[in-house]
């Protein structure tokens, strides 16, 4: 039936020339060796930092290793799925995710005034994690079957697809996740060729809406975070504490750091959330600017590889999805590293692949599984 699908087949010189047997083996088991290697380097680096940040707690390390094991398995499984199957099931994945989000409102459990989890008895599960995958998949699938650049009506539909989970998660309330999930959808829109006039128009509108948002929409604790960012010294005992301590940790690390397990800020409990959101401060204190440089390089390589996969994909679905997954990963990295250094407001975003975290690591690796599926998709030979 799809004989009309004349997907443009990009004939890359290198992939054509070095079509060795090894490469075809990797391709057969749907693994991108370069990406896998980079991820494993990041994992190893992350585990070392986590071990130090947790006060050399073996139980936390063990937990994280288990999470990683599950996450890598999830990645390998995801990589085996045929991309076209994912594309066809995108709508159901998306609707299922929305259903789960609605469920949170009724049977969700929460802490600190937020209702984000569904309890499965033996574990707690955060439905917004599903949306981290579902939103890029859904939006990519939506544009893949339409002519590009997107028409106005399609843009509106796409924005609705993004806004629905965005609003539901925002209401939990979990502003950080809501923004990141919306970002993953908007990236798809951008890559699909959203006309520049819309881009500039919305940037202008956003700028103009800052004042009303501040007054009507934002909650006190959110305002507090922004104010703390602007002047952390003003509230040394309360919200400013985290930022002051993390900046002190980073700054005192210097170029070469204080050495593993020697970070006084983190080892003496000055630094809050040291093994979750603020873990990069531990790394910066103990390994110095060199450690940060190494981490940033690894991230940059992962992102470059991801963008290359997107670029070399043969169909629009693969391109958009890979682009979105990679760039969203970048947004996570940027927001976390920026917030710990006091450049951005403190929103609860973990440092990908380094912070302690169960479901979030699994979700991330599932995303990389999709990347690998795209990278190793069979060329359609007619």
């Amino acid at each position, binding site marked *: 039936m799809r004989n*009309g699908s*004349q*997907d*443009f087949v*990009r004939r890359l010189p290198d992939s054509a020339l070095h079509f060795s047997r090894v490469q075809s083996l990797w391709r057969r088991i749907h693994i991108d060796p370069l990406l896998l290697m980079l991820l494993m380097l990041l994992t190893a680096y992350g585990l070392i930092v986590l071990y130090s940040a947790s006060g050399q707690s073996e139980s936390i390390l063990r937990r994280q290793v288990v999470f990683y094991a599950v996450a890598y398995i999830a990645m390998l499984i995801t990589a085996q799925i045929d991309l076209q199957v994912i594309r066809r099931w995108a709508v159901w994945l998306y609707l299922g995710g929305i259903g789960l989000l609605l469920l949170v409102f009724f049977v969700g459990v929460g802490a600190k005034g937020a209702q984000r989890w569904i309890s499965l008895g033996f574990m707690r599960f955060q439905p917004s994690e599903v949306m981290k995958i579902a939103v890029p998949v859904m939006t990519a699938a939506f544009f893949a079957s339409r*002519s*590009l*650049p997107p028409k106005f009506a399609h843009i509106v539909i796409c924005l609705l697809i993004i806004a629905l989970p965005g609003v539901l998660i925002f209401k939990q309330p979990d502003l950080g996740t809501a923004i990141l999930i919306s970002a993953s959808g908007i990236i798809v829109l*951008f*890559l*699909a*060729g959203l006309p520049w006039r819309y881009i500039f128009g919305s940037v202008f509108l956003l700028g103009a809406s800052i004042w009303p948002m501040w007054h009507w929409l934002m909650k*006190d*604790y959110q305002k*507090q975070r922004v104010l703390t960012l602007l002047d952390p010294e003003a*509230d*040394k*005992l*309360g*919200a400013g*504490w985290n930022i002051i301590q993390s*900046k*002190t*940790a*980073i*700054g*005192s*690390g*210097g*170029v070469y750091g204080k050495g593993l397990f020697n970070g*006084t*800020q983190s080892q*003496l*409990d*000055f630094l809050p959330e040291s093994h979750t959101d603020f873990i990069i401060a531990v790394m*910066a*204190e103990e390994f*110095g*600017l060199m450690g*940060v*440089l190494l981490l*940033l390089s690894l*991230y*940059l390589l992962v*992102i*470059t590889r991801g*963008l290359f996969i*997107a*670029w070399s994909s043969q169909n*629009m679905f693969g*391109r*958009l999805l890979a*682009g979105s997954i990679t*760039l969203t990963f*970048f947004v996570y990295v*940027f927001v976390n*590293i*920026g917030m710990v*250094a006091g*450049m951005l407001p403190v929103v609860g975003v973990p440092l990908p692949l380094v912070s302690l975290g169960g479901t979030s690591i699994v979700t991330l690796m599932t995303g990389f599984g999709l990347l690998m599926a795209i990278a190793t998709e069979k060329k359609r030979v007619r």
Partner: protein
Amino acid sequence: MIWAEKELHQFKDHHGEARVFAFRMVLSLFLVFLLFGLLLARYYTLQVVDHQHYATRSDSNRIHVRPIPPNRGLIFDTHGELLADNRPTFSLSIIKEHTKDLKQTIRVLAGIVEVREGDIANFYKLLKRRRRPYEAVPLRYRLTEEEISRIAVNEFRLKGVEIEAQLTRAYPLGDLFAHTVGYVGRISERELSRFDEQNYRKYSGTHSIGKIGLEKYYEKTLLGQVGTENIETNAHGRVLRVLDTIDPVPGKNLELFLDAGLQKIAAVELNGRRGALAAIDVKNGGVLAMFSAPAYDPNLFVTGISYKDYNALNQSRDLPLFDRAIQGQYPPGSTIKPVLGLGALKYGVVNFGTTIRDPGYYQLENDERLYRDWKKGGHGNKIDLRQAIVESCDTFFYGMAFNMGVDRMHIFGSQFGLGAKTEIDLPSERPGLWPSREWKKNTRGMHWFPGDSLNVSIGQGDVLATPLQLAVMTSTLASRGKHIKPRLVKKIGDTETKMEIIDQVIVDDLQWDYVMSAMEGVVHSFRGTANKISRGAKYRMGGKTGTAQKVGIAQDEEYDSEKIDERNWDHALYIGYAPADNPQIAAAIIVENGEHGSSAAAPIARKLFDAYFSQQLAREMLAEEEKLAARRTVDQ
């Protein structure tokens, strides 16, 4: 056809799509590099450019931010006598990070000073709640001198243990102001769970919070603002130097209208009884005295009351924790008669010449029931309103109420504050009850019967009022209709609180004269129910006695105190003001199970007024003396 077109369209655009995508991709990559560069620049700034600054911060001499708790505002009575003070006490705290073994340290401590199980449990609770490392967590409060020296001797064994001097709330006059000033106590789990980020900040360093009374009502004013200091400490937690300080702002002081002298009179007079007293300055609504008996010592609560003490207070039959003055709702009995009489005059239900014959009971048409007067056989013939007030003739009021009707009684009485909270500056006041047609329909689902009006007219039935409400009512009568909101606080810091007039009752002047003269008659005429208290008085006063039934008496039965348990005896009430020609002070008194307003409650009012005027006189004389003395020095 359409399908084919679409496919064609799609096919045609492939190159364009790929080109756009590739361009956006390159753009994204560029952006990624740019933003990573920005991150790197930021970390470079922190770690290389400003490295020295942050390195000193985190060096072995660590800098801590320490909250400096503000001094809580003091509370004074109207003459400047201190009612709530902050006194230095010593408490024992532990900095967990500085101990080698927390459990061992506590064990050692328990061998040196008294540490109870409850203290330890509390300590661990606070430790869990702690938000910053190196924060000292209190284990014991109010150390004795001996305990302090014993800790000092054992200091080498007690790393991480600190003795902190802090100001603790004290109430020098003890139970005299227990219900009005109230007390502070340790911040409880529940209060803490309701704190938001801002409150956490405000109370860092402060361990207590106003629990009841003025301490609670004026919590925000009394608390002040927390200060901070950056301190440099060495590895053992010793403070090496203070780097910079933001001073705390002390809470504002409160000056009350309450007068400790009058309060003492109330406490002495109500000693051993259950009851309450409220006295108001007629000119401005300031509460001069307010006391509920029995009271308790608020100092017990400040650093945590023991279970034993608390149970003793909480389970006492006399309910010492209950503030009868604003929470006790009693039937006001005959004390509301002057108000109703005045209303009847205003609405023309009766006039100065209206008289009745009193056989000792009143009967409604077509009703068997006898509404009895308190006086068997009645008050006689030709009873007018004046005499009905002076002798407290129920029969007159029954007939008057029947003619006046509930609606007018309700409207008029409400203007004197009956049935509504007085809005005094205290928490948990109760509103009493001033029945109306709607009220009965809404709560009982029944119509209003004329018999109900009769009960209301003698302050029985469903009518309920707090002693403070009665004092406000009396003050409104004494000031010829100026219904002022009562308040305890005269000054917050240096700012005087404002008088608030809630209502102005408008009645003809002659009618005011008439009712007030009748109230004067209650005290000063031969037949007045409170005439005993006029003996030897150097001023004239107005008043009204009341007796409120606690148990219902059957139709053909008579009240006999010997047959009834003491706790079911009638309540004695009295309202009064003085001086009669230019009222300054108005008071309401209730003595539970005191039986007769005239003998149990009215004499307390006399003593209160005597004290008030003699104090005033003494002050005036003193002022005069000072003036003379000043003149003499000038002359010399």
